């Protein structure tokens, strides 16, 4: 077993870097502040993902940030090793043509970079499981129930307890039906009865679930803050795939009750509104 | 020879073990079936090689083998060209396209394929 190759340094008389380096005073200096600021900044970063319009979405955002932090760590390490190799071990113009040390293996190192990634991956998986259990959980008695049915090429939202449905007509990337949902309550969405596979996707919620013929999918969302959220179809369903836009407007519980009452018993309501 | 037997034995073991774990975790039919079939395929190949293990000795598994030792063996027949493969291919293609464009094409493709296969076999014997 041989250790990683030692590369001989030609020539004599290396400069004394230690003596030449500027003296540093101990304590909090610009480097520490800089590093701490960077850490705070990165810690607050969402790295591009939506902060999450639902509690489940916020959970997902947290997991994503953990994954991204790990990605930065791994990426920086590997890129540094590659760049170091390219710079340090390139063939010099004055090369004498001799062979470098022909190292073939280093068992402890190889074991290390097998075991450590397994540990990292196991940790990521544990954190993933916890988030997934929370995000996928459905309660037996949600405050609000709505059924969403995808069809070519729009959505129909059914509120069975209030005997009405809103169906989108003439959808486009910017126009589609709008439904209202209450803030702060558990909303249970049921997906069923589509013609081909569609997918109920609200980017602001960091969430989608497929609407599959012959299958019923159920998920819960809780929206902490009011807002308008755009939804779309995320499974190719034909030429109108981009037209299946819809909007969710999260409002106070009282406003939601007013909206339900206004639509109560009206059966099928066609809606082409809102951009 | 032993190398190929063990290679397919590992494939078989993987199919059965992972298929078993997958079934117990999910009770899902399609994935379990495919994994178990993978195990079965590996078993067929490695089992055959196991049964024939005494009949084949490969010189290339000897790390010290020298080229001179191999000159007696006939390792295979390497033809310098054959007209049959392209006709077999065209026959298969026409046959499959016949399912789309007309049943008569299936017949034509099948005849072409069989004729070319017979030609190939005769070439082997000749």
């Amino acid at each position, binding site marked *: 077993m041989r250790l990683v190759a030692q590369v001989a340094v030609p020539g004599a008389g290396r400069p004394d870097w230690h003596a030449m380096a500027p003296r540093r005073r101990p304590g909090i200096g610009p480097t520490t502040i800089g590093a701490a600021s960077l850490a705070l900044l990165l810690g607050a970063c969402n790295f591009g993902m939506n902060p999450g319009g639902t509690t489940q979405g916020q959970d997902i955002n947290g997991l994503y940030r953990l994954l991204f932090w790990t990605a930065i760590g791994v990426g920086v390490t590997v890129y540094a090793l590659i760049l170091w190799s390219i710079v340090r071990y390139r063939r010099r113009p004055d090369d004498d043509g001799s062979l470098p040390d022909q190292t073939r293996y280093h068992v402890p190192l190889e074991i290390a970079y097998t075991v450590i990634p397994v540990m990292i991956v196991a940790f990521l998986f544990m954190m993933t499981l916890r988030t997934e259990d929370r995000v996928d959980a459905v309660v037996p008695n949600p405050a609000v129930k709505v059924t969403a049915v995808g069809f070519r090429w729009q959505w129909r939202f059914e509120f069975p307890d209030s005997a009405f449905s809103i169906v989108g007509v003439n959808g486009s990337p910017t126009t589609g039906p709008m439904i209202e949902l209450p803030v702060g309550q558990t909303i249970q969405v049921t997906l069923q009865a589509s013609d081909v596979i569609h997918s109920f996707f609200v980017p602001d919620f960091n969430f989608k679930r497929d609407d599959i013929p012959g299958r019923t999918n159920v998920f819960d969302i809780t929206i902490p803050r009011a807002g308008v959220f755009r939804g779309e179809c995320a499974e190719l369903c034909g030429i109108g795939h981009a037209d299946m836009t819809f909007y969710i407007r999260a409002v106070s519980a009282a406003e939601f009750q007013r909206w339900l009452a206004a639509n109560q018993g009206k059966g099928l309501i066609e809606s082409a509104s809102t951009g | 020879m032993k190398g190929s037997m063990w290679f397919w034995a590992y494939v078989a073991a993987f199919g059965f073990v992972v298929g078993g774990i997958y079934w117990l975790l999910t009770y899902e039919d399609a994935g379990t079936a495919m994994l178990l079939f993978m195990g079965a395929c590996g078993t067929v190949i490695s089992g055959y090689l196991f049964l024939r293990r005494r009949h084949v000795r490969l010189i290339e598994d000897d790390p010290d083998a020298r080229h001179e030792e191999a000159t007696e063996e006939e390792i295979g027949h390497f033809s310098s060209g054959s007209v049959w493969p392209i006709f077999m291919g065209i026959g298969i293609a026409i046959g499959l*396209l016949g399912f789309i464009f007309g049943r008569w094409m299936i017949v034509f493709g099948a005849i072409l394929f069989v004729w070319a296969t017979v030609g190939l076999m005769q070439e082997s014997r000749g």
Partner: protein
Amino acid sequence: MSSHDGELGGGGRLLDWVTTTNHKTIGQLYIGGSLVFFLAGGLMAMLMRSELATPSLSFLSKNAYNELFTIHGTTMIFLFIAPIGLGFANYFLPLQIGAPDMAFPRMNALSVWLFLLGGVVIQSSFGASHGAAAAGWTAYAPLSSKVGSPGPGMDMWIMGVLLTSISSILTAVNLTATVFMLRAPGMTMFRLPLFTWNMLITSMLILVAFPPLAAALSMLFIDRHFGGHFFDPAHGGSVVLYQHLFWFFGHPEVYVMVLPWFGVVTEIIPVFSRKPLFGYIGMVLASMAIAALSMSVWAHHMFTTGAVDNPFFSIMSFLIAVPTGIKFFNWIGTMWGGKLVFSVPMLWCLGFMGNFLIGGITGVMLAAPPADYQFQDTYFVVAHMHYVLGGGSLFAIFAAIYYWFPKMTGFRLSEKLGRTVFWFVMVGFNVTFWPMFVLGLRGMQRRIAYYPPNVGWTTPNELATVGAFIMAVGVLIFLTDLVQAFRHKRPAGDDPWGGYTLEWITSSPPPEHNFEWLPPIRSDRPAFDWRHREDPRVVHDTHITVPGPGPGL
């Protein structure tokens, strides 16, 4: 592409090509055919990127766009990346093991004709009534059913893919038999070049993965034309079943598209570092682990269906990162302490490493189902897959071309043009696909030709289109490099790079049955050992044996 060397004599040149059973000619047919399909698929991509530069539909019809992305994906996967790997394997695997040809030369010829015929069927489906298939390269039921996809375009797609599938299966049989049975004396399993090992493992994946695809497509065809209801829930069938069958094939397929190129990169980096491969056995075991794990991750493409056990597939998908990481560290370990030479093949390998790292890391992110709930079916996935297949495999394909072109033709490509191609493609590729991660995070879904103008998707799309044109320029320069090589015919010699494996012993191009003579084979670097047989630093009697169930493999 030359066949003037010791090839079949007499008759017309066309007859020679059509009746060939020589693995080198067949390899060239694969490589040439794949490159033509690559250009076709690339043209389709340029049309799509031109359409997507503006939010509203500009010059394509909705159906035309859907046909384009379907056939683009099908072409790049079934007609380019996979077959060009089989083409290089056809040409070089027998050379690397010291064999005169593949085990079954005539079946080998059948394979290449089936590939070319399948490709022609798929490309000509654009001319079918109702157009080509437009259900994506994945062809999910029920969109791909008779109701969702009327017209023969979908059927031609099915038959074309079946033809290429039969071709791949036959080649896998051939490669497996060749590796096990036709090695030259002294070429034990653990002295095989890594490219050969990876092709053997790729063949095993093909053998296990393609039958479920054939089953899925046959069942789809029966549903479409023979009154079947396999995927029809109204009559007791299951839509999700199609996805299980398809992805049990589909995931190993992506490793079929990557393992050969891992092998190529593993050949090139040691040569241009002037060192042996670091961690040979680890590399072999890592390839086997990747292949094994790839059979148990398929439903990570189905996390959002709610129909599969997400945790099982999640942990398996996370685990695949480990052997891939081992490969990266071994490549770095090979370069470490070496004397790196940055010839064009090495540049492509370094680009490969840089890009594939991003693709691999984002793959780990996708392995987490909750994160996938956001990413699935968005441009995040499109970016990930193009980083591994484009930034990864495509770069390694260029590396293979620049490395092995001298051996296949006897001529040299231009280092200067090659460098230019590399930089255009490297920059263009990253400008095209990095913005797509942003698009995915902002919620842009896949497979749409037009999108809302006010949600922040326009600028990344414009950037991506600019990048695509930069890449296209790189590809055009590459074509000119090919043309000038054949025109100027500058001789390359037997061994322009100082290669390690047996193909560099023989002439460029090799004679019909490959070798006039063979050196002793006592390590994984027989050509290197032969050229350095006087050098006391080089150990000649290297046994790499494995403690295992038998007396070495």
